[in-house]
């Protein structure tokens, strides 16, 4: 159930402004402290929201990745990628 950790860190992006800043400047270091599987870490760093969605990440929470533009995501890019999970 480590997808809980992905969901949790997505919400931390909203709540913890220091974590948000760290994710914007150096996501690999910011995620080093998080208890993630290799697959989850790779998908997050690649901004691969379609894979994260298939792993069970909640869409609203994942939206914070686009809203705060971390892991290379922008809203148009997020939209393009998540739509492939339909």
């Amino acid at each position, binding site marked *: 159930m480590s997808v809980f950790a992905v969901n949790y860190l997505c919400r931390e992006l*909203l709540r913890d402004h220091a974590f948000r800043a760290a994710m914007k400047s150096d996501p690999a270091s910011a995620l080093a402290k998080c208890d993630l599987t290799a697959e989850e870490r790779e998908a997050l760093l690649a901004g691969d929201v379609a894979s994260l969605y298939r792993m069970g990440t909640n869409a609203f929470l994942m939206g914070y990745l686009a809203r705060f533009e971390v892991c290379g995501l922008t809203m148009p890019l997020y939209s393009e990628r998540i739509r492939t999970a339909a």
Partner: protein
Amino acid sequence: MAEIVGALGVPHTPFFPSLVEREGPECETAKLFRKVTVEMESMRPDLIVMFDTDHLNTFFLDNLPVFAIGVADTFKGPNDEPRSVPVYTIKSRPDVAAHIRGAAVHAGFDVAMSQQFTVDHSVVVPLHFMTPKMHIPVIPIFVSGHIPPLPSARRCYELGAVVRKAVERWPDKLRVVVMGSGSFSLEVFGPRIAPGKSDGVPDPAWVTRVCKLLEQGDTQTLIQEATESQLLRAGNVGGELLDWIAMLGTIGGGRPNFVTPQMEQGHAYAAWNGG
């Protein structure tokens, strides 16, 4: 004796405050919120009870109640930073909220309780437009309408009926307006969003159908058709219709004063007089 003097259905789109700030008081959204606000003011409420679905901001995946009620002197929100919305402190009525919860539990609804909580845009955006002075206390009742399994539409309607009975047993004079907050068809950040956007309306035909049934006052057909599969087909926030259905339970359904859809957003604004 307390009484339910009216009911309102409203959307809570998080970008509406910034849109109205940009487009001004004559834009469609500003006008529609004014329309429901005029109705609300004519009802002269002392208290608002709001059925709401939280977006994993008040509750989270560590502890996710199907039904919950806020029992606090005050609560703050929004906790999710929608643009152009200050963080308000909202008064509540913990005595009435505890009374409603007691009545619900005794009627077989195991409603969870929080005495310390914050709320997200889904509670605050309608209040930002309708009661910006936050002078009317608000009791939030949370319905889990996003993360399946969803409670049934019938169950939500019956919860509304229990809330009505509880209000009517409150000994003091109190004019209560009930609000249902949410969309009928909307996908937010999920695979069915529109290209380039953060949301989309996957099932516009369902929005038309819901509005028609609301207009006709045909709540029983609405309850029958609002199955879990239909709500989920309407988008990942399609279950917010349950907040409207619970609201209808507090007034026994009936014909509205108006139902005005905003089709491109998948939602509507509506008002009913108390039954």
